[in-house]
Structure formats: C-alpha cells, structure tokens
C-alpha cells in the first residue's frame, strides 16, 4: 500500500474535504435516521422492556424477569405457530420467486411494453386486506368462481380457506400471486445490468435459451436475486393481514402464524409481556436467517468482473 501514498488523492470538484462530506451525508440521512429512531428503535427497546414484564394493558406492568421467555419454551402453540409460519415462508418464497423469475424472463424476451409491465404490479398495489376479501369470495366452496370452474371439470368443491390441510398453502399462494409482479420487476431491473455483449457472444457460440438462462442470466443476477429473496423473506415471516381477514387463524388453528398468535395474546388475551417476548424471539430468528442468507449467497459481491 506504499505506492498509493505517493499518489495524490484527487480532490473532489466541489465542496471541502471528506469531513464536510460526512456532514452533508448525515443531513441527507437525518430524516431516515430520525424515523428509524422514533418508529423502530424506541418501540424495539420498549418492546424488549415489555417482554420482561407481565402486562394486561389495564393494570400496572409487573416485572417478571425472563419468565415470559421460559414460558415460551413450554408453549406448544408457539412451536406450532413457528412451524406453520415456516411452511408459509417456504411455499410463499419459492413460488413467488420462481414465478417472478419466469415473468422477468418473459418480459425480457417477449414484451418490453410499459403497459404490460405496469399491469404486472397492479396486484401488488392492492392492499392485502382487499386481496384477502376478494379471494375469500373467489375461493368460496359454495359460491366461488374457482370452485364453479373446477365443478365444470368434475372436481371439488374444495374449501381452500376452510380445509385445515390446504388453508396455509392457500394463504401462501394468494400472497405469492399478489407479490410476483413486483418480484418480477425487481429481477427484470437486475437483468438490465447484464451487458448485451455477453448474450451476443453466447449467441455466436450457439448456446441455447436454457443454457443462456442458467449459465449467464442467473449467475449474473445472483446479488439481486439474493436481495429479493432476503427482503421478501423478511416480509413473508411477518404474514398477518391475509390470515386476520381470511381465516382468523383457523380452521382448527391451521393458519395461526406467529404474528397472529402474538396479536391474539396481546389484544385478546391481555398478555402484552408474553406477546412482546414472542416478538423479540421472532426478531432474532429473522435477523439470524437474513444474515445467514446474505452470507451464503454472497449478496454483496457480483460476478460481473
């Protein structure tokens, strides 16, 4: 590193030295930092504090130390909620990413029209609650459109939301459908970063479409793909609204995902402290999984030399 010290650092064309740059940077970051501190950091600290108490919202909180965490170890419903959430995340993330990738490739190959691209994100613009209500009708076993169509080919009726074996899968697929357009758009944007000449040379070498996809496109969009998966996984773990509207945790508790269980404990059973302890555990789980994923997918590095 001795060679660099002899070189003169090029001065920025405007502004002063690096110190004033930090100032400007902080100024730009301030709104985000302030929001983070007020709406995330403080509630997070408060939430952790709550998790060490017993509080029913009506009487004063009582300090109970780590009792809530100990109780979690013996709570079979909590374990089941984690498992149900895991099933949801796996089904949701795999289908959503696969569908997103497929659509992105189609956009690249077939249509680059802005109209088509805009249409793809329309479901993502509709609130989850609305989607849940609409699908509740469409998938209804008595009057739903899907079961009507299935009936024409002699299948069903299937209680998509009403059968404990399908309910969580249904919730996952409904949300995959909602999000796949957005995922596709992100992946599509990533594809635009791949230089055209790589495809041209592949063409010259006679590579087929499948080879181009698996050997060029996928490896080169890996960082984007990793980001998409990590970010959507974090969101996926926090599934709540569709469950709250469409199934309320049922049938027979088969869609009682972790966030819904937290909500039940906090607002229906008056156990804020216990609910807060579950939230802390969930935070840790998501944190560890995200770090692990970023690590194994080497998301910060790119293969584009």
């Amino acid at each position: 590193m001795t060679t660099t010290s002899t070189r003169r650092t090029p001065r920025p064309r405007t502004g002063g030295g690096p110190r004033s740059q930090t100032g400007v940077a902080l100024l730009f970051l301030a709104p985000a930092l302030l929001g983070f501190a007020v709406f995330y950091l403080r509630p997070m600290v408060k939430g952790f504090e709550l998790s060490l108490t017993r509080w029913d919202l009506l009487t004063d909180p009582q300090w109970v130390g780590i009792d809530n965490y100990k109780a979690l170890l013996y709570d079979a419903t909590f374990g089941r909620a984690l498992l149900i959430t895991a099933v949801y995340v796996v089904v949701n993330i795999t289908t959503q990413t696969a569908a997103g990738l497929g659509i992105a490739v189609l956009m690249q190959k077939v249509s680059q029209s802005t109209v088509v691209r805009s249409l793809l994100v329309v479901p993502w613009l509709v609130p989850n609650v609305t989607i849940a209500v609409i699908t509740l009708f469409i998938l209804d076993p008595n009057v739903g459109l899907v079961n009507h169509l299935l009936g024409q080919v002699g299948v069903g009726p299937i209680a998509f939301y009403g059968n404990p074996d399908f309910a969580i899968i249904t919730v996952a697929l409904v949300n995959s459908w909602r999000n796949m357009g957005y995922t596709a758009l992100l992946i599509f944007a990533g594809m635009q970063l791949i230089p055209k000449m790589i495809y041209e040379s592949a063409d010259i070498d006679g590579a087929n479409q499948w080879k181009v996809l698996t050997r060029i496109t996928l490896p080169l969009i890996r960082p984007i793909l990793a980001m998409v998966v990590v970010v959507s996984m974090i969101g996926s773990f926090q599934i709540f609204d569709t469950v709250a509207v469409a199934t309320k945790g049922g049938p027979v508790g088969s869609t009682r995902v972790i966030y819904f269980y937290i909500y039940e404990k906090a607002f229906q059973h008056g156990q804020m402290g216990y609910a807060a302890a579950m939230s802390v555990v969930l935070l840790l789980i998501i944190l560890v999984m995200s770090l692990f994923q970023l690590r194994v997918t080497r998301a910060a590095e790119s293969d584009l030399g």
Partner: protein
Amino acid sequence: MSLTYGLWDPNQKPAYETCAANFEKETGVKVNIEQSGWDDYWQNLTISLNSKTAPDVITNHVAHDPELARKGVLLDFEPFLEKDPVDLGQYTGGLAKLWVHEGKRYGIPQDWDTIALVYNVKDVKDAGVDPATLDDLDWNPTDGGSFGKLIAKLTIDKNGKRGDEAGFDKDNVATYGWGLESGGGVVGQGPWSWLALSNGFKYLDKNPFGSKYQLDDPKLSQALTWWQQQIEKGYVTPVEQAGNLGLEPMMEQNKAALVPYGSWRINTWSKSKAQQFAFAPLPKGPEGRKTIINGLAPSITRDSKHPEEAWKWVKHLTSPACQEVVANEAVVFPSIGKYSEAAAKAHEAGGVDVSAFLDIAKDPTSLEFYPITFKAAEINSEADLVIERIERLDGKPADLLPELNKKVNDLLASE
C-alpha cells in the same frame, strides 16, 4: 353534559336511543350511543380503558366481566346502592347475583335470554310433521329420541331422499335437518350446551366463579358423541360450509331446516322475508329441558368523569321506564318479569309466538347459568380448537374432552 354508552348489538340500538332521549328529557344528561361489532367491541374496550377514553357506561357480558372486575376497571355499585337502593329481586332468573364478585357489584341485569329451536315451517310441513308436535320433543344420547328422528326426517338430499329413507346420499345434501352455528368456545351456548345440560352435565364445580371445569364428565362426552354421530350421518351442516356461509344466510337459503338459537335474534327470524320461521321449545333430555339463561348488564368504567350521572343512566336502563320501551320495540326480553311478558305480547301482536323462550325462563329447574370464570378468552380459544375437531370428525369427544379439561384447568390454576 353528556355520557357515552357502548353496546355491540345494532338491533338493540334504536330501543336504547329512545331510552336515551327520555333520559335526557328527564335529567338533561345527553347519552351518546357507540355501537361496534362483538369482536371489535371488546378489543376497543381494552384499548380505550388503557387510554382512559372508554365509554362511561358499557354493556357488559359475563364472559368478560370477571377479568374486567378483577383488573379494577369497573366501578362498584354498592356505594351508589346504599344511597339509592334498587330492588334486585325483581329481575328474572336470579341473574342479578352473577354480577357480584367478592362483595362488590358491577352490574344490574337489563335483559335476559334463553335458547329455543328455530325451524322453517314449510320444511317441517313438507316432511309430513305437524309443527305442534315440536312442542314435545325428547332426546337421549343413545337413540336421539324424537328430536333425533325429526332432524333425520328434515334432512333431504339432492334426489329428494330424506335422511331416514333408504338410499339417502349424505354427501349430496340439499337441506340439512340441523343447522350448525360454528364457534361458541367452551360454552356452546347455541350449538350444544342444552344437549349436554339436559344430560346432567355441569360446566363447573361452582358457578359463578368456579375454579374447575368438569369437561371430562362422561355426560358431556355422551352428548357430544351423539352430536358428532349426527354430523357423520350428514344431518348437520358441515363446519366448512357453516363457517363461510354464516347462520342467517344458511337458514334463509334453506340450506338447513332447524337451528337452536338464542332469543336475542328473534326478530332476525320472525322478520325474514325469504322463509317463514317459527320457534319451538328445546327437547327434553334425560334430566329434563335445560337452557342457559344469561343476560347483559350496564357497568360503569373506572375513569368515567361523571360517575353520578352514569349511575343515573344505569338505573334508568334497568328501570320500568326504559324496560317498557324495550318491551314495546320487542327486541330482547327486558330483565323485569312484567316487561318480559309485555315484550312477548308485543311479539304476539305481530303474529310471532315466543313462548318457547319465555316459558322455560319461568321454570327454575330448567335454568343453568353461563359458566363464569376468569381467563374466559384464553379458555375459549383452546375449546374452539377441540370443538372444531369434533365437528370435523377429527377425534372422539371421549378422548378430546378430558385433554381439553386438563388444559383449561391448568390455565385457571396458573397465577
């Protein structure tokens, strides 16, 4: 000067609005009525009590009263009653004592309710059954008695075969004999409480404020086993359909011919334009005819800024003046006996016979109280899971109920 009064039943709002108008004329105190649906009502109540913005007077239910009382968010009525006594003996069914905990009173009954059978008149006649015979049904857990025969006969499949005929197709039922109301927790007030109670089952070691549930009682599992058999035979709406459809559309679209239900919805059925419904008494079980009698009561919240005025409103709600209004509107049965009769008369004038609900309330041997304990919300979540498994034929009541009993009693014993 104004008060807020919270309630969840939109059907009752007009009657209490009239009471509020009379009350304002009398005292100059305006009462604003806030109505929200059952689930939201209780959730909002907790949050608003927390932020000290709760209504001055709330409509209280025995499923929630114990926790509210224990947490000290309701005002004790005893100090008011000392200065300003009320005859607590005048209220139907001994309901007044349900609102007392550890010497403190948190409510005075404003109405009462019982369960009876709601049936589709045309369906019963089409089945060749004389509606008058429904007044004398019996039931037992072995062969189901005449009630069991009735619901089999009322069930009809898509080929027109009845449930008691050969060739009945239980997988293609057009009208079920017995409509299922989903949910209901550990109580099963509408769907099955009366079956189990008429078989001699008691929810608790002591009611109100028992410390142990008795869900492992064979009398409960006998009743629910028989119920499950009817579901299996295809005589009861499957839960998958029932939950999505809701009870009212189920009955109005004639997907079910009969449903046991509470008196608080009499008008839903009697004013239906889609079908003609009528009411019949519950069947007599081995221990006779049994219904839960329950009722609502106004309570004053701790942080009310106008407790004196709030007390006056509570007194007005539970006094002859307001009870007469409620009776004439014929919405629910007012708590004072005389006005219950008046409500029945008002229904009769409209051509509706509600004696199935009223007669049973006059017979003390037929009445049981709603199980009143702490932690009802948690207990009900646990029980809902088990009851739903029974409805889905996923396990036997004789195995599931003792397990549930242990869970529920552990919950009650904790702390």
